[in-house]
């Protein structure tokens, strides 16, 4: 039932995303490509926030780590091939960091708001260290990251030059990442995560190791964020300390909140819409933008907790009121 009803939406979405670069022009195609990268990043946050109920206020630390690793490899390794190794490392290292943080925090039952505050500080630590350390480029960041290379075999590959090629590459990566995340949240593991989100004590009582599972989920989320950071480094050609920063961590929360948390697609919707809006408004009034971001936070909390996608879904498929699950979600919902 649901799948067939969603089909027209899916077809329209595919048509729009595939056709957009043909009519958008260079500037907006690049803007969209960047928004897709940010969408992957936002989706990785949504995995934790929307599906594990844990908000990471320092998610940019993983993004920045992925981006900086690629930039460092490009600088230090002679004849660096920007195809596989960089991506692999930029997934593994943030996942490792998330594992370490999970060991220090989730295993100490530091969850919920305490986790959020500590991650806020983690991202500050990173920004402090990176801006202070000359080897990492200091405040200037690292320049000269090579562009995307699509390699099918050692020695056989294409450099992606035009912005349309880059867009299609990023679009396919986004779709793959989305399918991966959808698989994760619908797998038995994802269902246990949903249970942990609803009621951690009871889930633990059922015999699940909640600390272990939450850590695994945060590692998946961090790996995906690292991947998006690596994509960003290749896309923009340089990385700088603000990628680790609190403001960027804040932006990604806004994207997810606007798009709708716990929906995966919402991450992309939010990233695209907010970045388009930002590009349009910043041209006129740089000063106003941050006021608007602040207002977004307050407005979404008060009036718009489900975000765009969540609200649309509720309109189409209203949640059955009588089920106890709906009640428990209302209470437990952040």
């Amino acid at each position: 039932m649901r799948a067939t009803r969603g089909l027209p939406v899916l077809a329209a979405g595919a048509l729009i995303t595939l056709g957009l670069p043909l009519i958008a022009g260079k500037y907006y195609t690049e803007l969209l490509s960047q928004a897709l990268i940010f969408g992957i990043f936002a989706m990785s946050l949504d995995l934790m926030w929307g599906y594990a109920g844990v908000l990471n206020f320092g998610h940019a630390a993983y993004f920045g780590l992925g981006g900086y690793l690629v930039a460092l490899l490009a600088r230090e390794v002679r004849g660096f091939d920007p195809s596989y190794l960089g991506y692999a490392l930029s997934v593994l290292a943030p996942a490792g960091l998330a594992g370490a943080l999970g060991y220090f925090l989730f295993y100490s039952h530091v969850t919920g708001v305490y986790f959020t505050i500590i991650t806020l500080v983690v991202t500050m630590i990173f920004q402090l260290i990176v801006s202070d350390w000359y080897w990492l480029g200091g405040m200037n960041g690292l320049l000269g990251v090579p562009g995307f290379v699509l390699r099918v075999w050692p020695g056989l590959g294409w450099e992606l030059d035009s912005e349309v090629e880059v867009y299609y590459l990023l679009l396919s990566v986004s779709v793959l990442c989305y399918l991966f995340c959808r698989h994760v949240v619908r797998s038995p593991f994802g269902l246990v995560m949903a249970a942990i989100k609803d009621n951690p004590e009871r889930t633990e009582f059922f015999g699940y190791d909640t600390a272990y599972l939450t850590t695994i989920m945060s590692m998946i989320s961090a790996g995906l964020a690292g991947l998006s950071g690596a994509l960003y480094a290749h896309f923009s050609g340089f990385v700088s300390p603000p990628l680790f920063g609190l403001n960027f961590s804040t932006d990604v929360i806004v994207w997810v909140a606007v798009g709708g948390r716990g929906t995966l697609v919402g991450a992309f919707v939010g990233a695209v819409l907010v970045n388009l809006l930002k590009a349009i408004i910043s041209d006129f009034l740089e000063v106003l933008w941050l006021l608007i971001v602040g207002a977004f936070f307050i407005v979404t909390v008060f009036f718009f907790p489900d975000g765009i996608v969540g609200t649309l879904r509720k309109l189409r498929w209203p949640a059955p009121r009588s089920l106890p699950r709906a009640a428990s979600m209302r209470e437990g919902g952040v």
Partner: protein
Amino acid sequence: MAEAARCLRRATRTTSVLELGSLLTQFLNGATLVSVLILISIGLAIIFGVMGVINLAHGEFFILGAYTVIAADALGLSAWWGIALAPLVVGLFGALVEVGLIRFLYKRPLETLLATWGLSIVIRQLVRIVFGVGYRASPHPLLGDLKVFGFTYPIYRVFLMAVCLAVIVITFYVFYRTDFGLKIRAITQDVEMAAALAINTSRVYLGTFAFGSALAGLAGALMTPEITISPEAGVNFLARSFFVVILGGIGQLAGVLGGALVVGELETFLSYLISATTAQAAVLLIAIVIIRFRPRGLFGG
């Protein structure tokens, strides 16, 4: 590796210079930071402990206090007026925030966190619009040194510590010796029971939030001569005071004192050995490790 070796060299060099006098100076510098951290963190801890509200705009309340001094200076008032006005202005502002925003989000920590973070972005940007982007210098109210047994120390910092001590005494007196404090403690234990006993909870919440905000404003005003004031200065203090509260153990007023002592002194001594930013990063890292082994705080049960 090279960095580590350099640090080590610097460390060995400094230990040879380290004498009793400079050791004492370092300790007092640390005590200054501790005092300010206590002023900020007590407000944060009370608001969280009593209301379950995590106020991410607390750092901005701090800089609002600092900018009150700068505004008073622009109006031709002395820095002392600024320091006296700051807690009133920021406390009033806090009361407005409580009525307009916080009131709707009691006992929903994650949502207050988002809403107050939005508020902090708005305040920061408004400060940039009103006062300009860069650093601001401010008038120094009390120059000069205090000399005891041939040992000199800036008199303003001594004054700062004295104010902090006074605030601690007043806070503890209010909490444990007054009617208002009794109501606060009752609400902290069981808000429904307290309401049933005819305690006006919303008025106590309002008072608590305004008091906490006023303390942050006072801290900001007192720190104006000591730090470079910029719209971004608040976040730094916010992060440190959160760690003070978490390290001290949530819900304990006395824990704040211990947490501030650890964070402040550690950071001051480390920044003697390594660069100030790295020292700050190191302290935060150490705090995370401590939390692993003492999740209820250093002084929690």
